[in-house]
């Protein structure tokens, strides 16, 4: 099959850029550890309220781990527990969340803290809060008629 030399050049350039782009993504993912939230842990969606750590949602200081705090959320139609939380400035926090009913989203608006909460699965994301202020958490996956009312707040304080 004949290919025009300009076509070859164009495709060569395109595939070359693609390889560079995928290499950057790959290095970021597997060398720098920037993986999407893919926690492989499961939970019985009927027993969320009695399962550790979801029996006590909220912020907890932890020792001897790679992060300083664990921030536990339980989502259900149409709210998050806790509804508001204060996090110390600069804290390295592991957010751990799940849902009791349908699929919800967990997005700290305007940041890259963004994950799906699905019944039966636990979602996790580690982050450092290095800017003070008030952050809005919104549900970004349709969960029913009150979907747009579902939110929570994180206050990052000195």
């Amino acid at each position: 099959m004949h290919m025009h030399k300009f076509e070859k050049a164009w495709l060569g350039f395109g595939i070359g850029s693609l390889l560079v782009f995928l290499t950057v993504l790959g290095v970021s993912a597997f060398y720098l550890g920037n993986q999407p939230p893919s926690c492989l842990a499961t939970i019985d969606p009927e027993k969320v309220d009695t399962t550790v750590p979801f029996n006590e949602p909220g912020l907890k200081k932890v020792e001897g781990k790679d992060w300083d705090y664990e921030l536990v959320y339980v989502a259900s139609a149409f709210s998050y527990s806790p509804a508001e939380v204060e996090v110390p400035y600069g804290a390295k926090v592991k957010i751990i969340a799940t849902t009791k009913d349908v699929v919800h989203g967990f997005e700290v608006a305007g940041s890259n803290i963004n994950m799906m909460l699905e019944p039966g699965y636990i979602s996790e994301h580690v982050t450092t809060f290095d800017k003070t202020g008030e952050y809005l958490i919104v549900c970004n996956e349709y969960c029913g008629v009150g979907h747009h009312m579902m939110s929570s707040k994180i206050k990052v304080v000195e």
Partner: protein
Amino acid sequence: MFNPSAKLKVDPRDGKLAMAHFFVAFTALAIGGLAGLLQTLVRSGKFELPAGIGYYQILTVHGVVLGLVLTTFFIMGFQLAATSKTSGALTNKQRIAGWIGFWLMTAGTVLAAVMILLNEATVLYTFYAPLQAHALYYIGLTLVIVGSWIDGAAIIMKYAEWRRKNPGQPSPLLTFMSLVNTMMWIVATIGVASTVLFQLLPWSLGFVETVNIGVSRTLFWYFGHPLVYFWLLPAYMAWYVVIPKVIGGKIFSDSLARLSFILFLLFSIPVGFHHQLMEPGIDPAWKFLQVILTFLVVIPSLMTAFSLFATFESFGRSKGATGLFGWVKKLPWGDARFVVPFIGMVAFIPAGAGGIVNASHQMNQVVHNTIWVTGHFHLTVATSVMLTFFGISYWLIPHLTGRTLTKAMNKLGIIQAVIWSIGMTFMSGAMHAVGLLGAPRRSSYSEYGGAAQAAEWIPYQIAQAIGGSILFIGIILMIYIFINLAFFAPKGEQEFPVGEAADEAEKAPMVFENWKLWLGITVVLILFAYTIPFIDLIQNAPPGAKGYKLW
């Protein structure tokens, strides 16, 4: 290449079948467009829906009617007409299959529509379990899919017949492309059909109590991304084959066009995980693998872009254009059949770039489920694809109804596309911008308890409503043009433009017609990308989820 059917009209009986598809498609455009307008108005915060109609109810209407009904009906109608034109009239048996497919799809659409109107199925077109719709809604959507398979069977039978009668010959390019898209569609819809038949239906009927969420979402997205290529490939058919003829040029290369379609068949399906990047339950390494497979689709897209602009440039130069961009002036800027799809092609440049962001392993984290994504597919499917479909309608509808595209309608067509572009710039532009600020998709108007961040989003939501209103004017114009071309335009002959390849001496390699090979590779790629994570989703599954009706 000698094409005996080059001067022939589409057989009137096949034309009727295709037109039946278009009537449903344009009805869907009117209904879905109205729902879209209402959504943007509600989300501006200045308007409330009357009579207890729910925001999420019209959101479901909008998604189902435009994303599934309009597209599937238009595409099947177009592909049937294109196959009949390039491979000869359908046999009676093939035409009956087409009609059975059409009526099944229509019955399914009506059934799903009734359930949505009764507020029994406000689950959006993605119907994410464990939100549980009425069983008849799932049955309705299943009928749409099964109907499209039977429609597609007519195209496959025609292709097989042509190959039998013309041994050793490459099939006509438009038939070949219709066939590739049909096969891709059938392979992809197996995913959604499986989750509906084996998971959602038994569960909504009460035969089983719970459903495996991870599996249902994976099966849905196995279908959900190829779905967008199913929309895109008919636009590519028009760009590759029809546009060169419209401007008076040649197809850059018949073989390269076939190669790019084969690459789409291979790489369209094993990519669904990039919609699930933010989900628990799937190992990140498998997500990354599907990200790589997703990006391979960039290659046939680049081939298409090259081929189109090479066609434009060689046409311009053959008309005596000089300088680097002199050929641009030689293009027929007064011809709606060219200008309208051309605007669609231009929109595909930012649209494709946005798609690369969405599919990236970590960049997705910033935009996932924000209204940026909505902005993205309003550029791809609702601009690139839709404007190309409108451009196709401007010659295909009069061709099928024995009428002509008058100068007035041609001009109105161009005006329509300009209005569409302006409306979309406002709406999609605002969606992209506010999505980066974090505004969620698929949400009604909300001040989120007076949060400062949410207050920043409202001006953009007003811009979306302005864009949505302009777009609705575009929809009214389009419906007017459609009715004119179907019923009132003057009788006459309107050409069905089918381009010829520039390299006429060179025959397309027969390897492109080897379906055992290509479908075989497709299956291997799918198994490679899905088997292990899928087994994992079943073996390490949490207890299933019960159904909820939260609307």
